[in-house]
């Protein structure tokens, strides 16, 4: 096998695995601040106990997120040395800023947040929670700005020795692609956390444990879940799609399985792309909707893959197509689930509605699948480019690192991450079964 395949497989594996954790970290950091704020404003001890419970889950999740994130920071250099050498003068800025502005805040205040509640008092502890939230969300921005440069390079100039240099700081930092991708991504993180919070609340309710805490968690989870599920589609998803249509027409065509160019382009609900015969099998389509979503008019002309040179096509159209459709399909379902739950909550029926509780308890894996599919869409759609239009993925690898070395380390990561995953699930399960603590000696407010 070609070494580049191993490099790509390793990065896809380690990045996908890693991102299962930060999405909950970032979403939960937001929800913990909400719990802490309500506790602080109302003096209701239950909210503080809920926050403390989620902080324990957060701690385990954060640990796995950190240790699985360090490899990614290294892999830019170990596996993608020509990419780092070529573009490090630009993307190094956001990687360095992430460390300096975000990681320091996050890690310093995490210690204070997890271990310092008694020493800090309620106000200081709320502040520590807020700083952890701020640090993790800043970190998200810097890494997405880095990715946005790879998707839609701006603010750079050609430097000596065939390298890229930063030319315009603000253009690079506030890449329009980064802004919408960030909003879309962070909203997804809050959705994941909301579903997880609701699932635990549903579990406690069905088990008839910790019912007071369950009600609190359910309320916060359903309200944020509904709000962010709607934000996920519009405006964030909508604008992200328009940017893809504008800057990556090949990606858009492949996502929709669209081979023929034309006006009144249809949105595909279901169908299987047959790439070798350049057609879509068993399609169910809605005419005009793709034109409208991409360009704001039902009659707009959308370019199909047939009018794009073959060497510009994403190299895994089938996977890209399905990843995109899974993301959109699940995103739509989330609004339905959270909408229904919110209606029941409003009528004060949710905590007694067993079918809905079962649905919420089992729904939590789906936001993880949707975010994974969303990232796969973004990264597969970018192919065959590593930096869109500037450097091909094939030309970004470390030239002297053989496929055998990468295979060895990939298998090592797989073994390590398997064990890590088992331990993680075991510990989280223990915490959830254990539930929030209500001892008076724990209460500080």
């Amino acid at each position, binding site marked *: 096998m070609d070494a580049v395949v191993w490099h790509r497989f390793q990065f896809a594996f380690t990045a996908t695995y890693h991102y299962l954790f930060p999405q909950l970290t970032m979403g939960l950091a937001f929800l913990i601040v909400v719990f802490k704020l309500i506790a602080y404003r109302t003096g209701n001890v239950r909210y503080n106990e809920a926050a403390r419970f989620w902080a324990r889950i957060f701690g385990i999740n954060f640990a796995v997120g950190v240790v699985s994130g360090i490899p990614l920071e290294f892999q830019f250099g170990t596996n993608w040395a020509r990419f780092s050498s070529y573009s490090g003068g630009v993307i*190094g800025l956001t990687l360095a800023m992430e460390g300096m502005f975000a990681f320091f805040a996050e890690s310093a205040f995490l210690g204070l947040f997890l271990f310092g509640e008694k020493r800090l008092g309620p106000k200081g502890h709320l502040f520590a929670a807020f700083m952890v939230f701020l640090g993790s969300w800043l970190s998200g921005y810097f890494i997405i700005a880095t990715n946005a440069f790879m998707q839609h390079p701006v603010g750079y100039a050609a430097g000596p020795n065939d390298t890229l*240099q930063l030319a315009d700081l603000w253009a690079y930092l506030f890449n329009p692609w980064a802004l919408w991708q960030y909003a879309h991504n962070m909203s997804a993180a809050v959705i994941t956390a909301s579903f997880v919070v609701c699932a635990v609340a549903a579990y406690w309710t069905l088990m008839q444990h910790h019912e007071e805490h369950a009600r609190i968690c359910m309320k916060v989870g359903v309200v944020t879940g509904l709000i962010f599920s709607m934000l996920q589609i519009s405006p964030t998803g909508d604008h992200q799609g328009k940017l893809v249509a504008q800057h990556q027409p090949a990606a858009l065509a492949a996502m929709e399985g669209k081979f023929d160019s034309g006006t009144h382009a249809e949105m595909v609900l279901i169908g299987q792309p047959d790439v070798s015969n350049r057609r879509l099998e068993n399609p169910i389509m809605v005419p005009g909707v793709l034109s409208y979503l991409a360009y704001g008019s039902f009659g707009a002309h959308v370019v199909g893959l047939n009018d794009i040179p073959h060497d510009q096509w994403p190299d895994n159209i089938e996977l890209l197509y399905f990843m995109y459709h899974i993301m959109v399909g699940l995103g739509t379902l989330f609004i339905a689930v959270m909408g229904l739950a919110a209606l029941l909550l409003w009528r004060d029926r949710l905590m007694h509605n067993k079918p809905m509780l079962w649905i919420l308890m089992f729904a939590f894996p789906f936001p993880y699948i949707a975010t994974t599919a969303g990232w796969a869409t973004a990264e597969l759609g970018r192919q065959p480019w590593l930096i869109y239009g500037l450097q091909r993925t094939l030309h970004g690898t470390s030239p002297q690192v053989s496929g055998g070395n990468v295979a*060895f380390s990939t298998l090592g990561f797989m073994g390590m991450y398997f064990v890590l995953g088992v331990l993680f699930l075991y510990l989280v399960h223990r915490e959830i079964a254990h539930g929030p603590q209500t001892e008076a000696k724990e209460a500080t407010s």
Partner: protein
Amino acid sequence: MTTLWFIFLVFMFAVYVVLDGFDFGAGILHLFVAKNDTERRTVLAAIGPVWDGNEVWLLAGGGVLVYAFPRVYAAAFSGYYLPLMMVLWLLILRGISIEFRSHQEGSLWRSFWDGAFAFSSTLMAIVLGAALGTVIRGVPLDATGYFLGPLFTDFRMGAHPGILDWFTVLVGVFALVALAAHGATYLIYKTEGPVQERARQIALRLWIALAILIVPVTAATASVQPHLYASLISRPWTWLLAVGIVASLVGVFVSLRRGAELPAFLASAGFLVTMLGATAAGVFPTFLTSTLDPKFTLTADNAAAGSYSLTVGLYWWPLALLIAIGYFIYLFRSFRGKVTLSSDGHGY
């Protein structure tokens, strides 16, 4: 300006070694100074709130390296492919052994993580030292600007050395003893009772061993990379660093004898900083020496990013650093004084 960024990087790396160094040291000594669960919880509680922040200095330093010297980052990280993968696995193992240990009672669970913590800390100290050794010694950089360092070849010097040879292993052992000694002074400062008593006994032995080890390490460095000392002698201001090394070493022994806990730790930190500073001053402006041909050597000048980018960095980097230092002062002040264990069995 590239000189300035060289100094910034050395500064971040030195802070990293001082901070993460004491929690590596605590890990190396974990099984020796703490014998039962309460004592081991004490050691972990001494580093628990801060170790993750300490490690961030390495990550942030790596980020600044990509930013300021992308070619060095690309060459070094791909060249050290296998050793770095193992560093990653050790860091993963170490991180989870600190974090997961407290989540379940039971002697098997906790014993396992204690062992994993000590094992990964010990190996990491040696690897970090060996990596520093290869920076002094040089690597087979060629005209492409890349190299591939196998883990080991024949443990001898030459144009194509492995990562591990007699010299880098020697530096690795030196780093192991230095970080263990540094960790011991930290534990003396942060703990009481039997843990502190054992740390005190070990600290004295380790510092004596370290003071003796300096002689062969210095001699070996002089034989492997003679121009390091030549450039030190030609830059008189670096003699201050040599004075600093001796002064901090004396400071450690005097403070240990007097039972001055914080001064001993600070002197220990001073020792690490002056040692690293002297090494950096000796190799400056070189990042990676080529063992094949001096013209392939990567220096602060030929590997730097564009000047616009580095100029912009002169504004945001010091600002970010000041904020980060503020966080760390707040963090360490919040957890100042001797470690106290919470009674509910959680925490550590």
